[in-house]
């Protein structure tokens, strides 16, 4: 539990801050050595020691700030870049012209490379490049020239800021993905815990109420029937895995259909996943929901429905059958006026768009059955051909009557 929380709450770039602090101390020692070696030849040795003193104070302060979380803000990185740039530029007055000409190290030496790195850790590549640019300009001011060495230093400073900035962004992104994954895992575990608990308590009681109610009859029977409907709905709810898309953009059709199960609707499917492109799955679930809605509205109050999902290799077949009143031949026109055929037509349109075929079988008192066939690889059949094929395969009540 504690390990999980630390992953969820810690700053993902903490190791980069520790590295930055180490780099700052190390480069400070380098600068200290450089001043000791060169101070006898400085134009203003006293100013050199003052700058070194300022560097000491800033090194201690910035290192402490970076190691503590409060010092990891953009304002800290900006102050870091500005203070360092001033100290870098001050070397213009410390070194003699001869030293500048001989490329004697500035008082700050490689210590100046730390702020662009810190800026990159805080704000990514743009901040890193900006920090490098500012320090590079200060370097140019210190040398009072633009020569090969100043340009080379500028390239190195900017590159360091850029690379560290890109690295910190990558670390933050992968950390975000890890957090999402952990959260999803926690949600799944919680869902399973809930399902177990519901299965062990509520469902058992509902099942008993349903059974006793139907035995007692009368009003108790009605209560039992209601309990039974909730029992079926709850069972399918807690046993259905959340519909998810795969990385390759396909998704399992089964959970989308199993969610539609109820006291009157039974859903049958294979035990293995039936994968289709995610948008096709959404459309298919819509079709089935519409068809079931149609059953609910028109097939009679006691009609039950069965949904069957089959994977026949190059095709996925979904049938929706009900045992309702069906459609009498003479009632087809009336049905059309009631809007029933309107739904049928809109379902047909969607199936056409998916490159599939649909058939409708119905007869008076024999219910209705829709069968949708979708090709696995949605082949680009020209619309006119598809319409013709549909007309050939259509076997609805009108054709049979």
């Amino acid at each position, binding site marked *: 539990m504690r390990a999980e929380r630390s992953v969820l709450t810690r700053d993902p770039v903490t190791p980069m801050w520790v590295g930055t602090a180490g780099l700052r101390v190390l480069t400070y020692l380098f600068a200290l050595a450089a001043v000791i070696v060169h101070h006898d030849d400085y134009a203003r040795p006293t100013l050199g020691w003052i700058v070194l003193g300022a560097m000491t104070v800033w090194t201690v302060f910035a290192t402490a700030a970076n190691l503590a979380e409060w010092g990891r803000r953009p304002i800290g990185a900006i102050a870091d870049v500005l203070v360092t740039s001033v100290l870098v530029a001050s070397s213009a007055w410390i070194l003699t012209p001869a030293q500048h000409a001989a490329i004697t190290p500035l008082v700050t030496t490689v210590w100046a490379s730390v702020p662009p790195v810190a800026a990159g850790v805080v704000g990514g590549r743009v901040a890193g490049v900006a920090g490098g640019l500012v320090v590079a300009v200060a370097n140019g001011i210190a040398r009072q020239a633009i020569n090969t060495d100043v340009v080379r230093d500028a390239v190195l400073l900017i590159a360091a800021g850029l690379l560290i900035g890109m690295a910190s962004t990558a670390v933050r992104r992968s950390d975000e993905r890890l957090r999402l994954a952990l959260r999803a895992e926690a949600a799944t575990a919680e869902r399973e815990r809930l399902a177990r608990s519901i299965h062990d308590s509520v469902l*058992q009681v509902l*099942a008993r109420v349903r059974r006793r109610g139907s035995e007692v009859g009368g009003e108790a029977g009605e209560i039992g029937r209601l309990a039974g409907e909730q029992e079926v709905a709850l*069972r399918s709810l807690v046993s259905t895995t959340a519909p998810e898309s795969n990385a390759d953009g396909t998704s399992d059709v089964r959970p989308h259909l*199993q969610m539609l199960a109820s006291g009157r609707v039974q*859903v049958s499917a294979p*035990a293995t996943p039936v994968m289709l492109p995610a948008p096709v799955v959404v459309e298919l679930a819509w079709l089935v929901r519409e068809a079931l809605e149609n059953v609910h509205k028109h097939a009679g109050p006691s009609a039950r429905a069965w949904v069957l999902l089959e994977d026949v290799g190059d095709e996925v077949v979904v049938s929706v059958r009900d*045992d309702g009143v069906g459609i009498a031949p003479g009632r087809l026109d009336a049905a059309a006026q009631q809007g029933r055929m309107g739904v049928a037509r809109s379902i047909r349109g969607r199936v056409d768009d998916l490159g599939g075929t649909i058939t409708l079988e119905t007869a008076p008192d024999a219910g209705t059955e829709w069968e949708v066939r979708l090709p696995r690889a949605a082949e680009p059949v020209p619309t006119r051909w598809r319409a013709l094929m549909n007309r050939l395969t259509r076997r609805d009540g009108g054709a049979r009557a």
Partner: protein
Amino acid sequence: MTVSVMVVDDHPMWRDGVARDLGERGFDVRATAADGPSAVRIARTVQPDVVLMDLNLAGSSGVDATRQLTGELPGTRVLVLSASGDHDDVLEAVKAGASGYLVKSASVEELVDAVTRTAAGDTVFTAGLAGLVLGEYRRMAAAPEGDEQAPKLTDRETEVLRLVAKGLTARQIADKLVLSHRTVENHVQNTLRKLQLHNRVELARYAIEHGLDQEPDA
């Protein structure tokens, strides 16, 4: 002849309710059990005609218990009575030898009918189980390294199984296909029997390949 029954479920309220329902309707409820191992142990003694098996047993698998019961006791049939969601488990239990499957939300009348038919040697198929069995045959047929010995459905069996999966009763299927009721039952039963036989052959082959058929030395 009175049908003897044993109820296996880890929820006391459900287990006792089902036992009472069946007892009131003239079944001889010989025993109840709350987990797989004790179900197998008790069944050896009481030898029931039908075991009503829940698959979600706390701490043990109803599928394993089903395999043991059908393997050891030829006179005992297992009817799975489980929640609608445990798809994989239901298929596994049926492959392991269960004679049928009924959802827990079935009515008492459906339960009584299912137990009677199971005792008489019939299979009890819900539409959901038919969908699973149909899917299993298609999975085996589509397997990349085609198993030569994998059982296949005849066209007629496929037709019958699809109609069961669409919720038609055996009577309705018989009318629709102009067959006798008995023929439809036989077709359904065959689909299950082939699957169970194949499963046993597979298990035996696995055992031989992994040396599990030999007695331990010590």
